[in-house]
């Protein structure tokens, strides 16, 4: 990810780009996001980190097409975003599973929305449940699963759409530290396996750096992108990398950017 310097069309492997994107709420009285410029390359993992009210979730919703920008433009795969689209899939802080559906049926939901699921779709859903380690819980209802397991189902549902751009809005934010670390490692593995592009929103600095190729540090009032930090740590990354000197220099960098404002 680089600041928007070259023209959007020139970069062939850019899948998501934004030009002077801004968003205000309440008839312009609340500036949620101001003048954001970005290019996201195919297959990269980007973290958006910052305090509450920095516009990171707003930015994610703008990319998803759930809300429209007040100014500027966002393009995905070279076409402007004007509503939710098939090449983008989204995951939320809450698992938002449907209580009356089994794990498998929840994973199949996006397929059902687009038509009748085939035998192949069902097998794919089962494979995805296996990928997230829930093959034994395919026929369990959400109320029978722990919070971490529910998020795994949501992750499988995210992948079921087949979209190559994944938007993750603090997906493990409501879980305990141990479960979260574990699921983050899983997430990294899975995203690499399906070769997707991921945008990950969090307020946890360590998590943001650990997962990402680039960390976008955002500051609040008004929400804006303050700095983009490249994370050149090699993959696969073990949890122990978080104690390394390079990692902590990056943490320091993010903290300074956040504190400087």
């Amino acid at each position: 990810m680089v600041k928007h310097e070259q023209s959007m069309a020139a970069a062939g492997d850019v899948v998501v780009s934004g030009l002077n994107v801004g968003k205000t709420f309440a008839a312009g009285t609340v500036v949620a996001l101001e003048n954001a410029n970005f290019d996201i390359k195919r297959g990269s993992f980007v973290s958006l980190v910052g305090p509450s009210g920095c516009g990171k979730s707003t930015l994610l919703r703008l990319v998803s097409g759930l809300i429209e920008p007040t100014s500027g433009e966002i393009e995905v795969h070279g076409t402007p975003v004007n509503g939710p689209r098939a090449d983008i899939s989204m995951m939320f802080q809450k698992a938002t599973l449907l209580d009356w559906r089994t794990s498998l049926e929840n994973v199949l939901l996006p397929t059902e929305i687009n038509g009748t699921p085939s035998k192949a779709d069902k097998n794919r859903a089962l494979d995805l449940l296996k990928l997230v380690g829930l093959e034994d819980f395919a026929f369990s209802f959400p109320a029978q699963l722990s919070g971490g397991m529910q998020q795994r189902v949501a992750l499988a549902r995210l992948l079921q759409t087949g979209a190559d751009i994944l938007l993750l809005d603090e997906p493990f934010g409501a879980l305990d530290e141990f479960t979260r670390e574990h699921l983050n490692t899983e997430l990294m593995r899975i995203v690499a396996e399906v070769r997707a592009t991921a945008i990950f929103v969090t307020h946890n600095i360590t998590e943001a750096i650990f997962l990402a190729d680039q960390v976008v540090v955002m500051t609040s009032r008004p929400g804006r992108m303050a700095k983009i930090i490249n994370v050149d740590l090699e993959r696969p990354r073990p949890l122990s990398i978080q104690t390394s000197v390079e990692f902590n220099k990056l943490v320091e960098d993010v903290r300074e950017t956040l504190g400087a404002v």
Partner: protein
Amino acid sequence: MAVQDATSEVLVDTLERSLRNRRIAKHVGIFLTLTLLWELGSRMGWLDPLFYPRPSNIIRSFWLIYFQNANVWFHLYSTISLVIIGWVLGSMLGIGLGALVGFNTVIRRFLKPYVIVLEATPRIAVAPLLIAALGFGVNSKLAIIMLVCFFAPFINTLSGVINVNEERLELFRSMRASKTQILRKLVLPDAIPVIMAGERLALTAALSGALVAEFIQRDKGIGSLILVYTRNLNMASAFACIFTLTIIGFLIFKGMEKLDHYIAYWKYEGGRERMSSKRKRTMVEP
């Protein structure tokens, strides 16, 4: 905004707790003592048996109305069949209109004042009017039952449809679901538990509505039977009818509970397990 049943978990819980732990003997003991005191009080002349029937007479009346004269069956049939038909029709109307109003913001806005007025009016008060308009007989009875049944399912469906979880709605929108898909796959299933709560209230109301209609019409049904027995100061038989209604009320309560376990299965541990294994079978077999 949804109307909820007053029967709480706390009571059912206490009831189950008190019926466990070998306390049953104590309960029965207390009940028998109270009954015996009543019987004695009446025989000693402290309670006028003309107004406060003796337990022994009530038991005898049960035998009379159910077996010896067997006259209660006809009235029971009349009441129960009307209650069920009226409940089904009235609540179907309520659910349908509730969904319609819930989805249409314009209708909803214009209907609000009328709903407030309807909510404040004791619906059962319209009974004489309906009887006058539709005449004595089945039609007016059914109309009264439908009227008292209508409201709870209507208001609960409406609120179930309006109060859709925002996050789930966002999920559906991010998946580009159509309006019909959101309705069928999200809104309606999500509203089922609260609609069921409305249905339960409606069935109870239906029974009360039938009784009021029968009090006024005095032709047949358990309500008119209670009225006639009381008029003749045959209080023991009146009480036998009232306790019959207690049993019916209890069956309604249990029946609705069963229905809820069946329809809103995901709310209950047993229901989840049942459906879980059922879906596993249907997935594996074909």
